[in-house]
């Protein structure tokens, strides 16, 4: 079983990329589980044709953990992709990070972490230990950074490199950086910039995904691009990403940049 996690700045397109990746993987005949690890709970929405599935945390809050079953939290979406949303507390109260940990414990209890591929779609900033949960031992061994060429997006990606490096130093840790996915804003030389960033953090650009209107059109129809426009160039890019993810074996311990290095890198390609 392959377990991968997508991390990146909020709003950068992790959920869109994750959903299309999961859809493309499922079209290869693989049994895929996608877990949204963000209290926003919209990771799997396009796979579920626009419906918000009940989150693990909502169910626990309403019924108590003892009354929640595997069937309540695992929902079948496009092409049989199994979808889970961790959810979290109401905004402004409690501890969302602990919610992620509790969700993982519940999924373990149900034996739900199974299949050919698990895709973890995680909140942009690894703000506390809870959001690093998918990187811990036994979960995602391959972390993909989703970023555009914008400096704040690269900054967030660089911070995640720091988290991976720290976790990779622990004994038994198998968490590694598997590559960088450029979800472009269509800035000039963006692919070169993100490619160079990837190289400097000791990784590589796995796929360049240009901004394409068909993503928005597919989402207006509450579908992934893979489902809505399977013959489009964009769908082909996601399929290529899926192939590369399955073939990838170049996993590294990242070498995060300091802020000055990061800013001068961005300036070089501005």
């Amino acid at each position, binding site marked *: 079983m392959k377990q991968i996690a997508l991390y990146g700045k909020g709003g950068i397109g992790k959920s869109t990329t994750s959903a299309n990746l999961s859809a493309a993987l499922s079209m290869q005949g693989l049994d895929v589980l996608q877990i949204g690890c963000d209290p926003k709970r919209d990771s799997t929405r396009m796979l579920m044709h626009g419906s918000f599935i009940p989150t693990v945390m909502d169910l*626990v809050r309403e019924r108590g953990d003892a009354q929640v079953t595997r069937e309540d939290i695992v929902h079948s979406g496009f092409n049989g992709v199994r979808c889970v949303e961790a959810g979290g507390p*109401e905004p402004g109260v*409690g501890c969302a990070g*602990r919610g992620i940990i509790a969700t993982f414990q519940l999924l373990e209890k149900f034996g739900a972490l199974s299949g050919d591929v698990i895709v973890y779609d995680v909140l942009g900033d690894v703000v506390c230990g809870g959001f690093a949960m998918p990187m811990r031992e036994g979960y995602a061994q391959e972390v993909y950074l989703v970023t555009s060429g914008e400096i704040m997006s690269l900054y967030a990606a660089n911070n995640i490199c720091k988290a991976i490096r720290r976790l990779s130093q622990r004994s038994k840790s198998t968490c590694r950086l598997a590559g960088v996915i450029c979800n472009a804003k269509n800035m000039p030389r963006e692919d070169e910039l993100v490619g160079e960033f990837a190289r400097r953090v000791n990784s590589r650009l796995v796929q360049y995904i240009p901004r394409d209107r068909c993503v928005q059109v597919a989402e207006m129809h509450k579908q992934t691009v893979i489902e809505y426009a399977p013959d489009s160039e964009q769908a082909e890019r996601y399929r290529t990403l899926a192939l590369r993810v399955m073939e990838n074996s170049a996993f590294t311990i990242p070498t995060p940049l300091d802020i000055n290095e990061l800013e001068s890198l961005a300036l070089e390609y501005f």
Partner: protein
Amino acid sequence: MSSNPLPSNTSRFEGCTLTGALSITTSVTGSVSIVHGPSGCAHHNFSLLHATALEHDGVDAPSIISSCLSENEIIFGGEAALERALARAASLNPACIFVLSTCIAETIGDDAGAVCRVDWGVPVIPVQTGGFLGGVFDKGVNNALCTIADTAAPSTRQGTVNIIGEKNLEYEVEENHAELSRLLSALGLSVNIRFVHHVSPDEIAVLGRASLNVLRDEGQNPVGDHLRARFGTAYLPSFPSGLFCTLQFLKNVAAVCGVPSHPAVTMEQAVQEEVLAEFSDLAHTRIALNGAGLAGSSCGIAREVAGALTMKVSPRGCRVPLPVSPPVGTAGIRRMLHRWRRMINA
């Protein structure tokens, strides 16, 4: 585990803010203290306070309720659990309710203050006591004293004295208070309230009436400052300790309260001479001071007393115990000398 068994080498030797605050709030009669956190925080402190009360021949268990936070409250927020605990506490019809926070409640950012501001039909007083914020036992004591003091309104002074911050968990709390009352009454002064030792909220309301606050020790100076700012009351920073300092204490109290000191000082000198005469059999004995690293502040007093009795302090002398807190007044010295005599004659 530390290879050195001294208590001062133990992590958090200075204790937890929560425990310090509970040692004060549970001494307000008729009140209930809610510990907003996992039930273990309440149980641990309940056990400690209960065991100490039993040592002091107390029969009442401390009135403590836990909001019983569990994992779900940590994830979704614990304010609803605090509301349930407050409703339960209010149903007991207490004189007032204290709400003390814990590490985890502070970590997840529960707004206990906002929950307490709701009208619960009885006064609800929040005290910030998250131990991980760096405060120790004494910080909890001081936080609780300052918070409770704010429930009393300023009033006209009546020439009495407040006893501030008695260490409710120490062994000789009643003996120390009796000694202090004796010294004050020698000056013709009486105690207004013991703040806070088994007093009701009604008694606390007259906190501002005293002309002088006597603090238990210098660690409570922030409380003395707080009370001076609120009520304009002068304070002395510690209970009297040692032969010379006990006489000086009488002079200091007399000066602040505007009463003559000479008769009381003369009388106390005679009491001290009587005590020294009672232990004259210890003269020329060689003693070693044994405080196990805990009783540094008692060392100076012990040397003063040993000198007055012409005892010799030497590492090869008989090991005599030092009180953890310096002995209070002349009576405290007498009790210390009794313990020394038992060791020397053993």
